[in-house]
């Protein structure tokens, strides 16, 4: 990014973005904030940085987006560089402050708009920009080719099929009930996640499919502020779902992928109604339904006996509405459940959301400082296992585990379900002579 800091600022372009967003909402928000300070106490950055007023959400939008409007877009590179630190380095757009604002000001939306302004001038974290290049070239954040993706799926079908008879990973099956969409890290670096999902779908006897294109559910372009690209990414998925005529899109255990696919994506893609063309379901909901309806049964002798706590991912719980489903699902799997405080929609961000982890090492130190609150929350539960149905929470809590010596193990629901579910005889592989 450093070389772009030399280029002149395109204030015309900035004004264009500001004008396009200058609707009733932002106008109202900018004028009604009374600096009451309630948002400050809700923000984990503020709480972990000595209650420095510069970390209060109101200060963050006041010194960035509000200032852009006040100066009618006539800002310089120094100003954009200062914004960069605040909007990417001091806010994960977790939206907790919006809940505590007595006027309901959606500060995260304003921070996102400020990100769009900065991104338009090339001011964006390198780690996110690298994923944008990949999204543009291949449709997924890791630049994986279609051949490589399909090869990984068929390999996982083969390797996991040795453990579960009848397991298949269907590709592009028309009219399936669910099109299961992923985070590119799964086929690229954690292919076992695909194998585990296939096991769960097989035992639940689900009518599901993966898709040869449009399988990428993540949308880091959303966090980079590149709304046009974010729209393209999510459109790839929507259009594939429509082409295949599937009934639902199911999203892997990723938080921001759900936020993108279910809530923000339709707007990025330019769908006036604000609804995705096909219903979007998160894994937490889907897996809960399998257990609730008895399609998957858990072996009581295999249930987790160590103390367990549940990390409410911001984009699954507060922004996705699934906090009770997460708990009910956990109750099927764990005997000793301990709540973090606060919890459910009030839970704090893991400290690694909003693109913080893919933004790279440049931001690691801050991520560990702001994550201290989450580390304290986890430690206070006495839990030995943290369930995190979001890759980002998962990685951040693993990092916090090392940084703060929490002594916990982080698990996804997939991992626990695969270890604890009763596999009906018909799916059990027949012991062959060669396995003696």
């Amino acid at each position, binding site marked *: 990014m450093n070389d772009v800091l030399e280029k002149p600022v395109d204030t015309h372009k900035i004004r264009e973005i500001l004008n396009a967003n200058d609707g009733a909402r932002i106008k109202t928000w900018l004028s009604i904030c009374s600096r009451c300070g309630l948002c400050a106490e809700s923000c984990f950055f503020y709480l972990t940085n000595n209650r420095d007023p510069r970390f209060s959400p109101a200060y963050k939008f006041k010194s960035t987006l509000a200032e852009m409007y006040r100066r009618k877009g006539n800002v310089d590179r120094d100003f954009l560089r200062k914004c960069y630190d605040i909007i990417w380095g001091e806010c994960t757009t977790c939206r907790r402050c919006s809940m505590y604002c007595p006027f309901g000001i959606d500060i995260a939306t304003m921070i996102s708009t400020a990100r769009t302004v900065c991104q338009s001038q090339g001011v964006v974290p390198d780690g996110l920009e*690298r994923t944008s290049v990949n999204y543009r070239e291949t449709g997924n954040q890791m*630049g994986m080719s279609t051949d490589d993706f399909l090869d990984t799926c068929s390999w996982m079908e083969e390797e996991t099929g040795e453990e579960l008879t009848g397991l298949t990973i269907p590709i592009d099956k028309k009219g399936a009930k669910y099109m299961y969409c992923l985070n590119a*890290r799964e086929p*690229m*670096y954690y292919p076992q996640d695909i194998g585990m999902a296939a096991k769960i779908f097989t035992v639940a006897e689900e009518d599901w499919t993966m898709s040869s294109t449009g399988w990428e559910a993540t949308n880091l372009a959303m966090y980079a502020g590149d709304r046009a690209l974010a729209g393209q990414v999510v459109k790839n998925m929507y259009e594939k779902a429509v082409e295949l005529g599937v009934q639902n899109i199911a999203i892997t255990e990723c938080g921001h992928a759900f936020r993108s696919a279910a809530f923000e994506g339709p707007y990025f893609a330019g769908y006036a109604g604000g609804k995705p063309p096909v219903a979007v379901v998160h894994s937490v909901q889907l897996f809960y339904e399998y257990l609730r309806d008895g399609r998957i049964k858990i072996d009581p002798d295999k249930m987790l006996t160590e103390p367990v706590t549940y990390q409410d991912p911001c984009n699954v719980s507060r922004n996705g509405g699934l906090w009770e489903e997460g708990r009910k699902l956990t109750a099927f799997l764990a005997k000793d459940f301990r709540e973090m405080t606060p919890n459910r929609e009030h839970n704090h961000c893991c400290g690694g959301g909003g693109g913080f982890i*893919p933004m790279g090492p*440049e931001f690691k130190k801050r991520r560990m400082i702001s994550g201290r609150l989450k580390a304290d929350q986890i430690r206070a539960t006495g839990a030995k296992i943290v369930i995190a149905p979001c890759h980002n929470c998962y990685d951040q809590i693993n990092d916090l585990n090392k940084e703060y010596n929490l002594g916990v193990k982080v698990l996804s629901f997939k991992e626990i379900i695969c270890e604890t579910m009763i596999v009906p005889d018909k799916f059990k592989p027949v012991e062959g002579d060669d396995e003696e």
Partner: protein
Amino acid sequence: MATVEFKGKSFDVDEDGFISSFDQWNPEWVEYVKASEGISELTEEHWKVIHVLQDYYRKHGIAPMVRILTKVTGYKLKYIYELFPSGPGKGACKMAGLPKPTGCV
């Protein structure tokens, strides 16, 4: 960025614990990080994975997907996890001196 000294060698290490430049890699680095990656003793199999990762990185400038790693080494996924408990994406790449992969990892 911090500098690590180990057995007479010096490494610039980023905040995620990856060496900042592949050129700085040498076998002492693997010795240095193995304990934090949960490995007690290095075997030929570990070195085979490390060398495959490095050959691929020299040719393509990125880490290979796990599928390629299993194809070239002939190891099953579970075995790679036995070798590298923190996984092929992070643990093995870190040991091989590759940069942390791009994206949500």
